[in-house]
């Protein structure tokens, strides 16, 4: 006869787990989960986490990559911010790029996503697919295409001359005053895709009756946007702002392919000066210091954004 366990039996079992129970716990709750994690964990630790720590260590040395390194404390960082005009310039360029990587794309994306969701649009998916294309291509391919468009006798200058704006024509990638902005516009052309698809998905999640109510109240398109769409997109906006700011700080592919930082040093970015210092000029410590600065800024931006979203609670 099988006796149902009484409350007291269960209590005893809980209080004094047998060897079997311990073994079972060790296998089910520790061994198996970690066995599944292990291969990825090793790979990720070896080729991402340890290199990050080593970059941090390298940043306090002066090293040419061959001879023994000499420790310099925060010397590399101090040198970067006080003496290295090229790096300071590249940092200012990154700040200017914020306009092109973050502000312009977000405004364009808000406009497009409202345009595509206000009324039932036939072919919405097709438009979304086409408009997202620039975001999928390799930045090198994008850079090659725009290098050609920007040539002195290229399509853009030709069209400008054709429509009587020939005085605006210039070597877009060879002019100290405009090249950074010419590259920035290419970045905007690439970067609006991500916020656009996020905003479209975000607006589609906003309850329709909020829009209906606004329309009953006689709200025009702009007020509807201001009072319904925009408040509903706050999560998307914060996420996108942080991602695009990070891209602005990491910008490399476009300048590397289009100008290599030229003319002069006018289109240097932090990532480009990091690459050049570490792999071309034999200043590995300094390159590491720049890498540390880029990474720190990334983490601060992500943290700020998460705090902002966290503050908004579950709303």
């Amino acid at each position, binding site marked *: 006869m099988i006796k149902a366990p009484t409350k007291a039996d269960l209590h005893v079992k809980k209080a004094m787990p047998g060897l079997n129970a311990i073994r079972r716990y060790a296998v089910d*709750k520790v061994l198996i989960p*970690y066995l*599944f*994690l292990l*291969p*990825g*964990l090793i*790979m*990720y630790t070896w*080729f*991402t*986490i*340890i*290199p*990050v720590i*080593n*970059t941090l260590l390298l940043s306090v040395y002066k090293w040419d*990559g061959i001879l023994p390194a000499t420790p310099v404390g925060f010397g590399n960082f101090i040198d970067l911010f006080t003496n290295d005009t090229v790096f300071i310039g590249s940092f200012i360029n990154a700040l200017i790029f914020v306009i092109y990587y973050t502000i312009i794309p977000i405004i364009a994306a808000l406009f497009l996503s409202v*345009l595509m969701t*206000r009324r039932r*649009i036939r072919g919405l*998916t097709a438009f979304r*697919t*086409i*408009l*997202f*294309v*620039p975001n*999928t*291509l*390799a*930045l*090198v*391919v994008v*850079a*090659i*295409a*725009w290098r*050609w468009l920007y*040539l002195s*006798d*290229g*399509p853009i200058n*030709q069209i400008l001359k054709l429509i009587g704006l020939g005085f605006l024509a210039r070597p877009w990638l060879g002019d100290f005053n405009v090249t950074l902005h010419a590259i920035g516009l290419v970045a905007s052309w690439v970067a609006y895709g991500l916020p656009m*698809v*996020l905003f479209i998905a975000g607006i589609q999640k906003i309850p329709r009756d909020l829009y209906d109510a606004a329309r009953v109240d006689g709200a025009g398109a702009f007020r509807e946007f201001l009072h319904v769409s925009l408040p509903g997109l706050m999560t998307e906006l914060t*996420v996108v702002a942080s991602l695009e700011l*990070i891209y602005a700080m990491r910008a490399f*592919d476009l300048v*590397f392919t289009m100008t290599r930082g030229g003319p002069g040093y006018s289109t240097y970015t932090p*990532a480009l000066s990091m690459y050049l210092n*570490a792999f071309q000029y034999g200043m*590995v410590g300094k*390159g590491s210091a*720049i*890498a*540390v600065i*880029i*990474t720190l800024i990334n983490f601060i931006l992500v943290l700020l954004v998460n705090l902002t*979203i966290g503050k908004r609670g579950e709303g």
Partner: protein
Amino acid sequence: MTKRTELIITYVLLVIFSFFAIYPIFSIFLLSLNQPNTLVIGTKLPNPISLQSYIAAWVRGGFGRSIMNSMIVAVSVVALATFLSIMIAYSLGKMNFPGRTFIYYYFIIGIIVPYQATIIPLYYQFKNLGLINTYWAFILPQTAGSIAFGAFWLRGFFLTFPDELVDAGRVDGAGPWTILWRVIVPSAGPAILAIAAILFIWTWNDLFIAIVMGQSHDMLMAPASLAFFAGTVKGEDLPIIAAAAVLTAIPVVLIYIFLQRQYIEGIVAGSINK
């Protein structure tokens, strides 16, 4: 403004924006259809249409080799990173164990860390091992760099997988390994396809790892090859560079055409669902 005029204005604006999105790509495609060594100026159309520039890029520019390199690396990274991400996501999403939260945040770091933060030690590590200019120097760092996002992304998906099905499998006597590959993964096909597409496109498009780890002409990935090639040629060779750019873009465009819905929705899900 009536509904009708508003709709018309909407379509007109969307068509204009679409034109601006497509024109630069289309113009590089037109440029590539010119014969090599023709000086193409402005908006002139190719006449006659020729595939000679593609042949020149493939053979003379060594792009055949670069495309093959990129294909080997991207396919390896996608296979390896997807496999490892599935296992991590299963552990983090469907099991309860001490240290789970810590491990989760440990992987989150990898999403934020840029390649700039790892590339210098990685370069010297691979140099010391004599692995520069081998596929390992591209595959290992990019796999590691993809695992964090892949695991994070798939974990979000596995969390929504019904526990009852997992329990049912357990009652039938299936172990965790069998449950993962026989119960969860088959039902997660679209999600796995989406993450594979995203990882393929990111790996294929990467320039940074590619220019640091590829030091010989034979071991250039397509984007690196394109970037170096473009830096050395003169105006008359523009159609060849354009052809090389189109060749570099083709695999990504194909994946995008066939998987655009999964790809875009995958990116949306990966960016928002924390």
